[in-house]
């Protein structure tokens, strides 16, 4: 473990280092100063302005908290609500964790390297907050924990670091929504996430992004899955953004561990998305699956996927399907890397348009052309995601349905 001092030193050295992918961003263009929003009680949370509530609900936040196991809510730089509703599931602001708990040192910057690029560097040097969510050994989450990272002030740069830990034999479900206030045009979000899935634990992480037209988004995440563990990662982004670049990495370090990534991206005009997932299969019996559905809708989408099979007896599949609709561009870059005999890896990539034959088939069942297209698009985006709690499936379905209005 590095001391904070050592981390800061490394960060200072990397602060000028551009990311390997995506356009370089001048972070000085955004204001990262602290905005002292007050902490909200349960009551106050429910009485947020309506437009704001809608944005939050769209990104999966349930303000009534009825079917949620806990809530973390950060507005700009400040945590304004944070609680767990289930014993054995901890939800703690990371700054508080860094001050109070010694164990956090075993996780903080353990998977993501602070010197990766300027975004990781600034996350150490200018950390605002973020969450630590942990399921204690054997604890199974009844309802998903919700975490919202909300940007309210125009021009603000939000910098967070999140740590998610599913201890041995635990089961943890998280839904995290990132959104911006209705009046916000410009902003930046930099988020470091480190996921620890321990022996035989199960973690599902569903992320719904609702950004704004001039937003810069640079998440940096790495996950580590131990023996028999399962990491299920769902990513939904259906809104405009100026530039979003992320390439989360997962290391399957224990026998028979599993990683499954599902992403659904619907672009918007003048928006750039460079997204993907990378999984290292390091132990026998590990499995990985990366599945992406993208619709250009006038945007520019690069959909990456990279599977690295390091030992025999691993199995992995990559599937990337793109639909060009309303203009735009989709660039699918699937990569497979086998380093040993007996790896079983495959990929399927297709970029196309909606088949006329399918439209007419539906029209012959009475739908108008527009209804037929929308039905096909909804079908294209609907993924059967196993092991996902019903509340989360409902949130994903809701997001997909809402996207329809933007596309048509």
């Amino acid at each position, binding site marked *: 473990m590095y001391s904070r001092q050592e981390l800061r030193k490394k960060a200072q050295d990397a602060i000028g280092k551009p990311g390997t992918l995506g356009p370089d961003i001048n972070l000085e263009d955004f204001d990262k100063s602290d905005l002292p929003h007050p902490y909200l009680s349960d009551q106050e949370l429910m009485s947020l302005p309506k437009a704001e509530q809608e944005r939050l609900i769209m990104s999966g936040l349930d303000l009534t908290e009825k079917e949620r196991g806990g809530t973390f809510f950060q507005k700009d730089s400040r945590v304004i609500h944070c609680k767990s509703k289930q014993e054995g599931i901890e939800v703690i602001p990371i700054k508080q964790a860094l001050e109070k708990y010694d164990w956090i040192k075993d996780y903080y910057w353990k998977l993501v390297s602070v010197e990766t690029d300027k975004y990781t560097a600034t996350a150490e040097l200018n950390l605002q907050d973020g969450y630590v969510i942990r399921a204690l050994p054997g604890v199974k989450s009844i309802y998903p924990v919700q975490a919202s990272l909300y940007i309210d002030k125009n021009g603000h740069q939000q910098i967070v670091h999140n740590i998610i830990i599913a201890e041995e034999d635990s089961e943890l479900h998280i839904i995290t929504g990132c959104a911006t206030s209705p009046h916000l045009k410009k902003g930046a979000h930099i988020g470091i996430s480190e996921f620890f899935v321990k022996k035989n634990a199960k973690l599902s992480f569903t992320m719904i992004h609702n950004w704004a037209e001039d937003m810069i988004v640079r998440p940096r995440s790495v996950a580590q899955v131990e023996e028999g563990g399962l990491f299920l990662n769902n990513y939904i982004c259906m809104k405009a953004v100026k530039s979003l670049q992320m390439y989360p990495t997962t290391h399957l370090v224990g026998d028979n561990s599993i990683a499954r990534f599902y992403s659904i991206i619907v672009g918007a005009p003048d928006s750039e998305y460079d997204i993907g997932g990378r999984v290292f299969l390091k132990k026998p019996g590990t499995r990985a699956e990366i599945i992406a559905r993208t619709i250009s809708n006038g945007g520019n989408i690069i959909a990456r996927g990279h599977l690295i099979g390091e030992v025999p007896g691993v199995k992995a599949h990559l599937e990337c399907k793109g639909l060009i609709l309303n203009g735009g561009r989709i660039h699918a870059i699937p990569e497979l890397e086998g380093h040993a005999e007996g790896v079983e890896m495959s990929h399927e990539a297709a970029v196309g348009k909606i088949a006329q034959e399918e439209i007419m088939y*539906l*029209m*012959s069942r009475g739908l108008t052309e527009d209804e037929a297209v929308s*039905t096909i698009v909804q*079908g294209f985006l609907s993924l059967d995601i196993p092991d996902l709690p019903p509340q989360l499936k409902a949130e994903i379905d809701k997001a997909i349905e809402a996207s329809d209005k933007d596309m048509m």
Partner: protein
Amino acid sequence: MLYIEDLEVELEGKRILRHIDLEIKPGETHVLFGPNGSGKTSLLMTIMGYPQFKVVGGKILFKGQDITNMPINERASLGIGMSYQRPPTINGLKTRQMVKICSKNKEEDEDKTVELAKRVNFVDFLDRDVNAGFSGGEIKRSELLQLMAQNADLMLFDEPESGVDLENITLVGNSIAELLEKQIRPENEKSIIRQKQARSKMGLIITHTGYILDYIIADKGQVLYDGVLSCTTNPREILNCIGQMGYKECVRCIVDKN
């Protein structure tokens, strides 16, 4: 009534249907025979309104309206439905949802969907994507289920019984007969004449085997040969003739007889 007059159809610049005259009155079901590639599917697709089948001459009237240039969905709303020979797969759309689309039943009426599916032994397929990986016989049952939900007045069946196994053929045959109001053994008490008067459904069924004739009363048989409708007579007679002499001879013999 469906009324087709001197219809000329081109597909990709090639004339595939010539001088088609066809009239199906309310309550009538016709059977269409013809060798592979003779244009049977093309005729059905043209009636349904597929724009790649370009009408270059003649006209199609349905319920008194000229539908020659009407979009597919408007023809569907007017009461034309089709059971396809080779329908496309629609990924992510569940058969259950498709049945609801057909019945215009947007709100949840699960019971009705399941009840319909039971009749063609298709309940287990409701949660599968439309036509995804369906076997030949399963496609036919899926298509039939959709038509049952649609409640069209003119039903176009493209080889509805081919590929259907012996156990399901009875279900399929009887369901089609019921849809077309052409059961061989009427199930209710109404007199035959009263039933005949009540009939309004129209059918056009493509078949190679004629098995469907074991389940329905067909009014007329037609043979499409090389893009031309070559004869109109009792369907059983046509089937026997084709069986004995082949299409080519059969078309000639019946033409001569007429």
